[in-house]
C-alpha cells in the first residue's frame, strides 16, 4: 500500500481521522484476501491506456483513479463501453484533464467492460456496539429501497456466509435469471469470507464497499471497491 499525506483522501462527512484508499489500492487490498476482481490496470497516460485495453480486449471502461476520488460516478469520471483504441485514448485524455489538485496523484484505470443483469453489494461496516460486520445486499439503484441485506459479525465461517446468502429475501435474483445461470453461491460465499479475512488482517480498516458486485455469467466480480482506513498515527 502506498504512503499517504496526512489527509489527502478525507471525505466530506467522513469521521475525522480516516481516509479512503484509491480504487486500485482498495481492490488490491481486498483481492489479496480472495475477493475476486476483474483483470485491470492503472496507467499514467492515454497511450498506455489504449495499449492496456488492446491487451485485455474491447469493450473496456476507463476511470480516473486516485486517493482523493471516492465518488467517481457523481463527478463524471467513469467512461463505459469504449470499443477501440481511439475511444480509450480520448477518454483517458478527458479524465486526466478533469483531475483537480485535491485528487492527489491520479492515473487511469482500464478494465474490461463486464456485463451482468444482477448487481449485489458487499462490504464491511464498523458497528458501534458489535464491531466489524460483513454485509451482503441486493445492489443496484433499489439497494436502499429494498434494504434486502444480511449481516454477520467478523469473523465469519463458510456456514455463516452460506446462511447470509440464503437469508436474502430476493432469492429469485439469485437463481437462473434472464438467460443467465444461477449465482454461484460458493463463489459468492468466497467474497464474504475474503472480506472477513481482510477485516481481520487490516486492523486500521474502517469500512469497505464492494459496489457493485456484478454477477457475470453467474460469477460475482467486484467491479468497484472503496476501502476506508484510519489515518496512521503521526509521530510526534
Amino acid at each position, binding site marked *: 500500500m502506498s504512503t499517504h499525506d496526512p489527509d489527502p483522501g478525507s471525505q466530506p462527512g467522513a469521521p475525522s481521522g480516516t481516509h*479512503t484508499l484509491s480504487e486500485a489500492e482498495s481492490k488490491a487490498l481486498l483481492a489479496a484476501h480472495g475477493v475476486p476482481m476483474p483483470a485491470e490496470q492503472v496507467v499514467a497516460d492515454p497511450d498506455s491506456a489504449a495499449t492496456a485495453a488492446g491487451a485485455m480486449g474491447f469493450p473496456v471502461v476507463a476511470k480516473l483513479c486516485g486517493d482523493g476520488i471516492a465518488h467517481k460516478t457523481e463527478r463524471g469520471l467513469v467512461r463505459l463501453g469504449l470499443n477501440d483504441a481511439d475511444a480509450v485514448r480520448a477518454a483517458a485524455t478527458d479524465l486526466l484533464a478533469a483531475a483537480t489538485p485535491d485528487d492527489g496523484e491520479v492515473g487511469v484505470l482500464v478494465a474490461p467492460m463486464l456485463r451482468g443483469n444482477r448487481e449485489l*453489494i458487499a462490504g*464491511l461496516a464498523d458497528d*458501534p*456496539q458489535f464491531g466489524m*460486520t460483513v454485509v451482503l445486499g441486493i445492489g443496484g439503484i433499489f439497494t436502499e429501497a429494498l434494504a434486502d441485506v444480511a449481516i*454477520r*459479525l467478523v469473523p*465469519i465461517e463458510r456456514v455463516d456466509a*452460506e446462511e447470509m446468502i440464503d437469508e436474502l429475501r430476493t432469492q429469485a435474483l439469485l437463481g437462473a435469471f434472464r438467460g443467465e445461470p444461477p449465482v454461484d453461491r460458493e463463489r459468492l460465499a468466497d467474497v464474504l469470507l475474503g472480506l472477513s479475512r481482510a477485516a481481520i488482517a487490516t486492523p486500521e480498516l474502517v469500512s469497505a464497499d464492494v459496489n457493485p458486485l456484478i454477477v457475470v455469467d453467474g460469477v460475482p466480480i467486484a467491479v468497484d471497491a472503496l476501502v476506508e482506513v484510519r489515518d496512521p498515527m503521526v509521530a510526534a
Partner: protein
Amino acid sequence: MSASADLRTEQFKALFDPAGVVIAGASTHPGKFGFVALHNILANGYQGRIFATNREASPVLGIDTVPAIDDLPDGQADLVFVCTPAATNPDVLRAAAAKGIKAAFLASAGYGEAGEDGLRAQIELVALAEDLGMLIVGPNGQGVVSTPSSLCAQIVAPYPPSGRIGVASQSGNFVSSFMNYACASGVGISRAVSAGNAAMVGVTDFLGFYADDPRTEVALAYVEGISDGRRFFREVSAVAERMPVVLVKGGATSGGQRAAASHTGSLATDDRVFDGMCRQAGVVRARSIEEAFDLAASFATQPVPKGNKVAVVTTAGGWGVVTADAIAGTDLELLALPDDLVTALDAELPPRWSRNNPIDLAGGETKDTIPTILEIVARHPDVDAIVLLGMGIQSNQGRMEEEGPFFPEFGLERIAAFHDRQDERYTTVASQLADELGKPVLVATELAVTFPGNAAVRGTAAAGKLCYPSSNRAVNALARMWEHARWQQRRGV
C-alpha cells in the same frame, strides 16, 4: 472451571435453590414490598427455612421477626431478599455474609436508576459484595422464581406452574408477562429472574447458569440495552450451542456515528446488525413477547423437527386451507402425500376424504378414526411434523348442551361426557406420538383462548403441550423450530 466460576455457580445455586431465605425489611403494611415478598414466599409452598427482619420485630403474616440479621442463627439461610432502604443495605449485606448467606436479591430502589448518587451507591455495593464473596442480583429488581424449590421471592404475581423454561429479563414486567402466559397455557417455568439494574450480573450470566441447569431446557430472555456487544455475542453463543435461546429485544440500540464514505454502512442499521448477530449465534429472535413465549413453550414441549415436511390433519376444510397458506409463507413444506400413505388412509376413511394434504377427514370420523389416522400419518417416514386442527368441536357443542335448558335429559349428559373423553383422548394421543416418535405434533384451536376449559385444550395442557390459539401461530412456531434445527444441523451441534 476457574475458582471464580465455581463461586458464581455456588452463588446462583444459593439464589435459585436456597435452603433458607431471609426477607430483610419485612413489613406489616400490605402495600409494602417487604410484606408482599414475604407473602409470596409463604403462599406458594416454599419448603426451606423462612426468616424475616422487621425494625420493631413485629410479627408479619404470622411469622416472628427479628430486628436485624445479626439476630438470626448462623448457616441457616443462603438467600436474602432485600427490601430495606438503600442507605442501610451495606450493613445488611455485611450481616448476611456473616451468617453464611451467599446471594442477595435487591428489590430496593434508589440506585443506578436514580441518578449519580444512586449509581455511586450501586458501584460501592458491588465492590462490597465482591469483597464479601456474595452475589447481588438487582438492585431495583422484581424478584426471583424457582419452581424446583417452590420459591416465589418476588414483589408481584404470578407464580407459574413448574416446567423447563428459564426466564431472564432486563425488565421485571416481562418476567410477569411470560409467567402469566405460563399460567394460562400450563407450559411451565423452571427459573425466572429480573436483572433489575444488573449491577453485578446480567441476563447472559443467568443464561449461562441455565445452560448447565438440569431443570432448564430452554432459555427465554428479554433485553433492551447491551453495554458490550462482543461480550454479549460470545456469551449468548455459548449458551445457544447447548440449549435453545429465545430472545426478544426492546428498543433501538444506541446508534453511533458511522463512516459516511461507506455505502454498506448505511445498510447496516442497528437492528439489522442485532438480527444478524442472533442468526450467527443461533439465538431464536422473537418479534414480540407473545411470539417469544410461543417459541419457548414449543422448544420446551415439542421435539425439534428433523425435516421440513409437514402434514396437516383436519376435521374440516377451511382450517386446512388457511394452514396450508401459512405453511407456504415459510421454509416449511406441505408434504405431497406419498402413494403408500394415501392407500393406508383410504382404508380408514370414507371416499370423500381429501386424498391430499391437508388431510381433511371430511367429517367421516368414527370414534377411533382420529387416533388411527394420526398414528398412520405420524409413523410415516416422510412426515417430519403434524399440525392437528379441529379438535374440541364436539366438546364445545357438549358445553352448549350442558349450559342449555335440556341438560341432562334426552341423552345429553351421556353424549357430552363422551365428547369430552374423546377430545381429551385425541389430544393425548397427539402428545404421545410426538414424544414417542420425536416428531412435533402441534394442536391448534382458538378454543385455547375462547373456551380454555374445553376438553381438547385441557387434554393438550394435561399432556404438557402448548395448545396453539391459531394455526398461524402453530405454523410460525414450527417454522422457527425448523430454522433452529437447520442452524444446528449445519454446525453439527
